[in-house]
């Protein structure tokens, strides 16, 4: 069956429908990763977005049990050149098509994704709708539909919940956390407590954690001013690390600014440079917003990592605190493991602060 992607600028792409039959709208973004579609689909940072895969063959190894980054698909829809009819892998549980049907996730295959990618690259990521009905009114209606993109959708429904282990106690503030972050913390035996995004500093401190982790999450960080005071308090009292959205919030909490990028960084072949060592690392990236490097002047922040080509700020340190954050995902999943050492540095920081 035919299905369409209509972009806000009027471009129309025709392809074949798969997955859910529902029509949706969302911001159309692309990822250049050649593996890891399942992680991408379930990554909460992509909540509400329509994901275009530049790799033309998606679903080759099916859907596995271990590769989810959250409980459900987070993207609104997927767009691919081709979806594998017959996947093959020893861990494969079902086809991507079947998964999309089960999870009520709409998709289009058979479109010229390279043309689409170049259009987004040149004009910036923009709203789009996915529909089987090209009728003008229908399309307009879809565009007008409010996209519910409240943080409360993403954070845990509990006020807090534990994920116990026998290492340092880490309070995680959940803005839409990816499983891989918790996996990395857990690998290092962190005794985790996960808090809702609107948690107060006092609540966090009352749980006597050794450190704080600001998670990743979707959306525009500048709309999150109400969570900043918590961070401002915590960064002075405990070792703190932020990832992705957490990086942006830490920047905002310290007086810097963020901006929406033209089409973002989504993929795993972006190298970042650790400015303290001069070494480069390939990192998993999934951000549409970034910390404005010019806004760092006059704050107590310094650039730690930057993307080597466009010099986007990819990591910051707070000068007078035990606090740092990275824009990329050192936890990878999908993508390279090059920057896992950032977690080790976090745990080292915790160890040092405990000594004091």
């Amino acid at each position: 069956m035919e299905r369409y992607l209509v972009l806000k600028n009027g471009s129309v792409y025709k392809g074949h429908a798969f997955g859910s039959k529902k029509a949706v709208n969302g911001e159309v973004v692309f990822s250049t990763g050649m593996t890891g579609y399942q992680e991408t689909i379930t990554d909460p940072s992509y909540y509400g977005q329509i994901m275009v895969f530049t790799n033309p063959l998606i679903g080759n190894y099916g859907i596995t049990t271990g590769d989810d980054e959250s409980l459900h698909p987070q993207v609104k829809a997927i767009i691919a050149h081709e979806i594998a009819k017959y996947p093959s892998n020893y861990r494969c549980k079902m086809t991507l098509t079947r998964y999309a049907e089960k999870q009520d996730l709409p998709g289009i295959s058979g479109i010229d994704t390279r043309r689409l990618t170049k259009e987004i690259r040149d004009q910036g990521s923009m709203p789009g709708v996915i529909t089987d009905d090209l009728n003008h009114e229908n399309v307009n209606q879809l565009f007008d539909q409010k996209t519910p993109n409240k943080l409360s959708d993403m954070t845990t429904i509990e006020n807090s919940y534990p994920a116990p282990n026998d290492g340092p106690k880490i309070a995680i503030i959940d803005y839409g956390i990816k499983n891989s972050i918790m996996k990395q913390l857990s690998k290092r035996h962190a005794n985790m407590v996960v808090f809702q995004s609107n948690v107060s500093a006092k609540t966090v401190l009352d749980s006597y954690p050794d450190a704080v982790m600001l998670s990743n999450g979707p959306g525009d960080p500048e709309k999150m001013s109400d969570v900043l005071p918590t961070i401002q308090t915590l960064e002075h009292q405990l070792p703190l690390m932020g990832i992705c959205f957490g990086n942006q919030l830490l920047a905002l909490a310290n007086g810097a600014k963020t901006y929406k990028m033209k089409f973002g960084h989504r993929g795993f072949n972006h190298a970042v440079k650790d400015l303290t060592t001069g070494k480069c690392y390939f990192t998993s990236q999934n951000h549409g917003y970034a910390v404005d490097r010019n806004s760092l002047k006059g704050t107590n922040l310094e650039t730690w990592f930057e993307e080597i080509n466009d010099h986007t700020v990819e990591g910051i340190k707070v000068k007078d605190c035990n606090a740092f954050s990275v824009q990329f995902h050192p936890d990878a999943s999908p993508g390279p493991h090059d920057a896992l050492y950032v977690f080790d540095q976090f745990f080292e920081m915790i160890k040092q602060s405990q000594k004091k």
Partner: protein
Amino acid sequence: MPKRMDIHKILVIGSGPIVIGQAAEFDYSGSQACLSLREEGYQVVLINSNPATIMTDKEIANQVYIEPITLEFVSKIIRKEIPDAILPTLGGQTGLNMAKQLADSGILDELGIELLGTKLDAIEEAEDREKFKDLMKQLHEPVPESQIATNYDEAKAFVEKIGFPVVIRPAYTLGGSGGGFVDNYHDLKKIVTLGLGLSPVTQVLVEHSIAGYKEIEFEVMRDANDNAMIVCSMENVDPVGIHTGDSIVVSPTQTLSDQDYQMMRDAALKIIRALKIEGGCNVQMAIDQYSGQYYIIEVNPRVSRSSALASKATGYPIAKMSAKIAVGLHLDEIINPITGKTLAEFEPALDYVVTKIPRWPFDKFTTADRTLGTQMKATGEVMAIGRNFEESFLKAVRSLEVDTKYVFKPQFQKLSTDELLKQLMPAQNDRLFVILELLRRHVSVNQIHDITQMNQFYLYKFQHIIEIEEQLKQNHGAKALKIAKQNGFIDDVIGKLWRKTPDQIRQIRTKQHITPVYKMVDTAAGEFESTTPYYYSTYEESDESKVTKKPSIVIVGSGPIRIGQGVEFDYATVHCVDAVQKAGYEAIIINSNPETVSTDFSISDKLYFEPLTTEDVLNVIDHEQPKGVILQFGGQTAVNLAEPLSKRGVKVIGTSVEDINRGEDRKLFDQIVKKLSLQQPKGKTATNTKNALTIANQIGYPVLIRPSYVIGGKAMEIVHSDDELQNYMQKAVNASNDHPVLIDSYLMGMESEVDVISDGHSVVIPGILEHIERSGVHSGDSMAVYPPQHMKESIQQKIVKISIELAHQLHTIGLMNIQFIVYHDQVYIIEVNPRASRTVPFISKVTGVPMVQLATHAMLGKPLEKMGYHTGLVTPAKKIAVKSPVFSFSKLPLVNATLGPEMKSTGEVLGTDNSYDKALYKAFVAAGFNVPKEGSIFFKVKPSDLDESLKLAREFKSIGFQIQADQSTADFMKQQGLQVAVKDPVNEIKHDELQVVVNTTDEYDLHTQKGQTTLNDVALEHQIPLFTAIDTVKAYETAIAGLSFSIDPM
């Protein structure tokens, strides 16, 4: 760190002649590296013995030495040039082995010369099996259980412990020479013994077999700052068990989850960091399809065939970057040339699928063992790019230029399903056609998977191709057509299914607007803007190949490297591009071979990586609307397109299609010969066996027989009797149905050839090449010398005169190759090839005449006179140059090593010096022969060679050789008063005491039973120089005599 200023002059070692396992890819990587070093301001000294390369062009390095890559000659060059450093990682295994030899000899320490790229201990750690295993243990990287054996008993003891199956891998050999899978003690003994013999360090690795696992390769780069990255991932469609050079390979990996991919990526990076390689490196791994357990198979600490493929697959120029890293630059200090904006520290993202299929020489070597295993047998490969696997795969299949353009072979249709299933394992070269035929018969994917262990993902893709084929049979609508085109079907195949001509299909789909678009290879999956002029076709929406206003010319390359059509045509193609650009046109290349210089996107204004079929070439021409197309430099592949393209209105630049035909068509050519009152061996054309017998008897045996329209003497034989003729007709007529068979009188004279350049008026002859072997040996397999050493002046004048007349008569514009036999002081014409020939790079280099450049300018309308060249023979150069062929027999069991009219060599080398004997010496040494001053020589000759061999034996004796011979040869020599030791050629010769074997008896003749060990086998197995033509022995003796002092009593 910025580039190093403490070094100024760098020696680059090339890879020498083309042999199986080490081919054109090193011309590509070597020339890229040299240019890249010069770009950084270093002086580059190059050594390579292979003249048929771009790399040995004067423009590539400051000093180019075409000399043997032996310790003797490389040391000489080093002492003369005193380089600061050597870059050995771009010349394949030859380069690394030479670096090791140089280091061992002490010259590097003595002169304080540094090895760049990979340090010596890293080479040893990667290549010495034991050290490698230790390193992997240290790194906690899994390797299959294994043990080094230096003799059979050690190997046996280990196998008794771990059990079969095991794999045997000899240390330090090209393309895994001499290894194999073994599941019984008989084979174990055979392969271990062979492997020990081939390994320069007499070591083999006996290893637990992981056959059937998924084989994965990573191309890895690292710089001195320890930045490391994956340039390209590749997945072998053929599981472990078949050498990766003989496997169908897909990039990027398709069936690895991110978890598996990253696990293996981590391992690859860990290894390159541990080896501290500065530059490119190849890591081969295997992963169990059922558990995800992976193993490291091996590491090549250098640029390899796979890195050439990876460079073309991703657009990321690995060799160029490796050279820059070797001089100290960091990845984040180098600009990625493909985007021109981003840095080289970037892991390419692909938005297409690449398929590589090897090209095997079994169309030539019909008796060869076609089984695929750990010994690579392919001579070349093709690559294709598509937006899905089916498209990419089918494009690759038709790029192969075998007897089909599609995954269908009639010979398999004839077999029963059981017979086909049996052919799946052990795999032979045409297994993919067997699989597709089985799927056509609805044999299940799972059944094929169970037998072959091929991943179902690919088998289902193959099944999809069959489904489309079935759909096409039933449905002739536009939708079915579009689906077929999107999945890589060509009009030819659709036409057959629809009972229409390809042209009709083309019309139908043009009407329906089903035409290809061209997409760019940009390393970034579209994320960054790129201006790289590197394109592939696909059936989608947006086109990215903008046609400029500048008039353009399309140049068709020569496709995969095969016997008879090698890297020399790539040399010609690249030079043609240069000339076309200099003449003010945009030069557009179409080619399908990933190993070559011509498919480097920086060579031409635009590169289309496409199959070289009429349809694919026509599509590009439709898109580009060039002024014309140049076909002369792409070998027979391109010339064969002249007629179909011209018929469809494409302007063929240079010699007209009619004149090409007049040169190639026997009857038409006979008329010209008559008209010019020239002589040619008596000959006629036969279309059936009866006809052939009559003709042969009229002419008189022996006759030379071959099909018309040949590349490199395919299926050509000298036939001595009716019996042999009948036998031949059965084979050959099968081989080429559409074309008749030519029967010529066989004249045993001196062969000679010339390449002429003509603009239609002036005819320039850069040089005359004299063949060392008399007629009967294919010109590609002959040694040859320039200028002629044994040819009378009057004969030379005659050859020049005839050549000029022929060029005029055939209205040659561009290049033409003419072959002659000089017999009883008469000049006979054997054939003309209205195109660039194999000898063009050799002659260009030794005469200094830029033949392809001149020819191209002439084709574009510039008179040769204006370029300073006049009709006639160019004054010969002072140096004497000898070309020697190089063979790959040790890699191809059951191939007849006896030279004959069928071409068998895979490469060539050049030896030049001031005297003939010295030039010969260098040519032999460069070709890999030992030239001993003394020792023993074994003769086994056919009756007609007895007299000459006696003379030679006497000469060998006088310079200090002991003579051995088989019974019949010895009988004759003894009769003539020569002392000879009689030995049984197979059982009695002691290979360690024998320096040369002469065997001119063809043991593979029609009466020899297969399976018997022959003298040739013994010689090849023990790497004793083997000569099968008496003239080569004479040349060899001349070379040795030049080194020897005579010892005569007063």
